[in-house]
């Protein structure tokens, strides 16, 4: 009995931190309608400042904590809001989500550059020692004090919201931002304040949990995001009290599983997957009102998409020329490492293409790409290694193995939209990783399974051509998809699902189709990645990479096939170009994170859009206006 009580108390202690952090997340979401996936990264960054003060400067713990939580963190939050998030305020909700993914990648890059990518220990604010609880079990003093501090912070927050003038203004903005603006409230100031407050809470969260968890720049942000989303989802991102309760429930559940769960095999890792299992269940059970209302309908960007495009003939000509150049590259570039980087670029272009057809063409979103890639790579590896099947067959069957998962998400996408759909795909990637890819029977004892290259394509140069062939095939299918009947229907669904249904078109069928196709393409990319390294490794399919992929695809240009190729080359060649420049290598994540966020704020068509604009200008100069001049089209609003 006393063990049970102690287990529950431990759960409540960690749960209270989750609860505290979740209130911060929901507060930001409700005031600014941005679901901040960068929350964990913000906690990481502020905790590193705390670490800097305490460990390197030897400042007293409490002073450091107060300086970070009350001064530095709010300043960072205010800065992010005024410099970035206010600019994408009227964009569809999913754009804000991708921007916060960019923030995550950016902040992580900054931490790597300023500090380290190695795990650090953080001193605890609280003294060592333990407390006896009735019944005989003991509880760490720090755990008890964490419970006290986080409950205290939440009570303070509640009192502030309820009884101060500022709190009233806050609640007004939360209820209805435009109306609050009409009531002469400075809504910008309030949203900045929400970000400041949210970042403070993120800092406090980091400082409270890292002494026990270790400060790991790679894992911490995603650990925090996983429990945060699960907690916040209890209130469907809308209710502060329910998010708080969700945090406590999650903490206790995890603690109980850790103490009493005696599962073996796959279920042994159930504890790690708990947050995302909860997210999935809650999303599937979400009441219709919440599923539909203001979670951001389709993914629609305010873009001048229909503006300037050259004639069909010119575009085909440019495409043939570009791919021809890519085909000649191995004869021009003989350096082995350059060829390898180019191959990586081609493979990644296939992966980015799967995002272009899903998000750019069809307005759906997926943060679960790595899930599809991993399923395919491990299936192919086992078919080739265990059963000794030909790598060609393994390739095809492996890619097909990801299709049912894609189809399932497509079916769910009929019910879930925008933000909630993004959450579900993220949960899928995490569950695939935790439950399957990290299972020794799937990824082997060393974490990887051999996957030979197909016969005839063993050499690096030959393999480059294999990647290029897959990419060209994918690009042709994508081009036909966009220009044909299927593409028109997908674009129609993106603009209005209701109208599409009213014409007798089954939206379900097309959503299943596009998610399956995108999964298949991503899967082909995943298999190629593994074949290039001649093994499928579990560390190649971390959910975090799906986020990086999305940011890179945005930088390249999410709305065009050419954007995927540009993104692939960018991704593949970045490391090669700067191979002798350590600083630029470290800047990679900053570059893509910042690039994605800026691209979304300034030019949603990304690098490819810029290139095309330049190309059209040249065409106009030489070809007597064969490239149509960009009409100053009014910008279409997002569907919300």
């Amino acid at each position: 009995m006393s063990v049970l009580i102690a287990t529950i108390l431990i759960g409540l202690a960690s749960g209270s931190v989750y609860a505290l952090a979740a209130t911060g997340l929901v507060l930001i979401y409700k005031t600014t309608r941005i679901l901040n996936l960068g929350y964990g990264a913000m906690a990481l960054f502020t905790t590193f400042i705390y670490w800097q003060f305490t460990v390197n400067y030897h400042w007293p713990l409490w002073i450091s904590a107060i300086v970070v939580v009350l001064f530095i963190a709010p300043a960072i939050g205010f800065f992010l809001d005024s410099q970035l998030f206010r600019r994408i305020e009227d964009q569809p909700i999913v754009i804000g989500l991708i921007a916060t993914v960019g923030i995550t990648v950016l902040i992580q890059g900054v931490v790597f550059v300023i500090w380290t990518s190695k795990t650090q220990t953080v001193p605890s604010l609280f003294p060592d020692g333990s407390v006896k609880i009735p019944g005989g079990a003991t509880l760490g003093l720090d755990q008890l004090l964490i419970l006290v501090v986080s409950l205290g912070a939440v009570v303070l927050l509640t009192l502030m919201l309820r009884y101060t003038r500022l709190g009233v203004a806050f609640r007004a903005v939360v209820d209805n931002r435009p109306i609050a603006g009409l009531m002469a409230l400075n809504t910008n100031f309030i949203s900045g304040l929400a970000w400041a407050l949210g970042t403070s809470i993120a800092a406090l969260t980091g400082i409270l949990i890292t002494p026990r968890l270790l400060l790991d720049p790679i894992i911490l942000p995603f650990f925090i995001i996983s429990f945060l989303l699960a907690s916040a989802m209890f209130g469907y991102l809308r209710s502060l009290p329910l998010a708080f309760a969700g945090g406590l429930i999650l903490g206790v559940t995890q603690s109980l599983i850790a103490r009493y769960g005696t599962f073996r095999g796959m279920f042994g890792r159930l504890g790690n997957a708990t947050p995302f299992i909860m997210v999935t269940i809650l999303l599937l059970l979400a009441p219709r009102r919440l599923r539909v209302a203001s979670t951001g309908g389709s993914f629609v960007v305010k873009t001048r998409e229909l503006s300037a495009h050259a004639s069909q003939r010119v575009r085909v000509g440019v495409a043939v020329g570009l791919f021809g150049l890519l085909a000649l590259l191995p004869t021009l570039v003989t350096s082995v490492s350059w060829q390898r980087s180019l191959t990586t670029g081609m493979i990644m272009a296939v992966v980015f293409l799967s995002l272009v057809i899903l998000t750019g063409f069809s307005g759906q979103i997926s943060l679960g790409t790595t899930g599809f890639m991993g399923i395919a790579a491990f299936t192919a590896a086992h078919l080739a290694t265990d059963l000794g099947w030909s790598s060609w067959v393994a390739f095809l069957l492996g890619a097909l193995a990801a299709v049912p998962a894609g189809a399932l998400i497509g079916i769910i996408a009929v019910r879930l939209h925008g933000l909630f759909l993004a959450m579900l795909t993220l949960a899928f990637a995490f569950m695939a990783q935790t439950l399957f890819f990290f299972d020794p029977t799937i990824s082997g004892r060393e974490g990887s399974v051999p996957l030979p290259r197909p016969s005839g394509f063993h050499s690096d140069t030959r393999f480059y051509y294999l990647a290029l062939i897959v990419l060209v095939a994918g690009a042709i299918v994508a081009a036909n998809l966009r220009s044909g009947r299927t593409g028109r229907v997908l674009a129609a669904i993106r603009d209005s699902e209701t109208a599409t249904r009213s014409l007798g078109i089954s939206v379900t069928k097309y959503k299943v189709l596009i998610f399956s196709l995108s999964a298949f393409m991503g899967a082909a990319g995943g298999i190629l990645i593994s074949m290039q390294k001649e093994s499928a490794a579990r560390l190649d399919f971390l959910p975090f990479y799906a986020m990086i992929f999305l940011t890179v695809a945005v930088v390249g240009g999410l709305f065009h096939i050419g954007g995927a190729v540009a993104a692939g080359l960018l991704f593949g060649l970045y490391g090669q170009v700067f191979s002798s420049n350590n600083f630029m290598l470290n800047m990679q994540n900053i570059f893509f994170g910042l690039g994605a966020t800026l691209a979304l704020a300034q030019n949603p068509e990304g690098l490819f859009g810029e290139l095309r604009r330049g190309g059209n200008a040249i065409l106009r100069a030489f070809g007597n206006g064969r490239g149509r001049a960009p009409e100053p089209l009014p910008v279409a609003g997002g569907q919300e």
Partner: protein
Amino acid sequence: MSTLAAQGVTVRFGGLLAVDDANLRVPEGEIVGLIGPNGAGKTTLFNAICGFVTPVRGAINFDGADITKLAPSRRARLGIGRTFQKLELFHRMTVFDNLMVAAEAAASKLDLASDLMHLPRRPREERRCAEIARGVMDELDLGWAAERRASDLPVGTSRLLELGRALCTNPKIMLLDEPSSGLDTRETHAFGQLLQRMNAERKIGILLVEHDMDLVMEVCRQINVLDFGRMIAHGTPAEIVAEPAVRSAYLGEEEDDAPATPSARG
């Protein structure tokens, strides 16, 4: 017989009874009006007929078959087309593509593989459907806007485009939800004539939800009046004008406008 009939349809939103035991019939090739004050439940009844809202009681029959349980897309395939009060165009696509999507939905026999691999079948089917789309475009005088983006159109043209989009699916009956809102008097009149022409030439039945009484009186042979979710009158335009219940509920005699209940609207 492509007759549409709603029998005893009741729709509830939480505690609100939006449509209460409503009966409605649109005989084949007829133009029937549905009028009523704001919040009377017209759009809700409309949505129940199209399948976007599920009635708690009642049945909807079309062509002699019970379609109460069918999904909206299935009903559309049976020949029920509609437009929307709040425009639902594919706003980032061109006018032509808006029509093309509809034409292909109804007429294209293109399979996925031929489409994605650009097999010879694809241009053939596309040409056939493009002809349908172009035919409707000419019929509605939309040719000048063919390559314009739908979001760039003035309201009048947008309404026409929605009508054209529904026409491309070659429906047996069309449900028009306040097509004249946003149109001026002249445009409304022209729209009325267009409806009558469509009805005469294509033998399409029309259910018209409308605020503009002139338009309703001009084109409808039968009118149903809905008030607070209940059908309070039914008859020819002349009978409706004479009906005292209608005069008090709708034409505003004796009492002020009925209170609006916005949540009951689609």
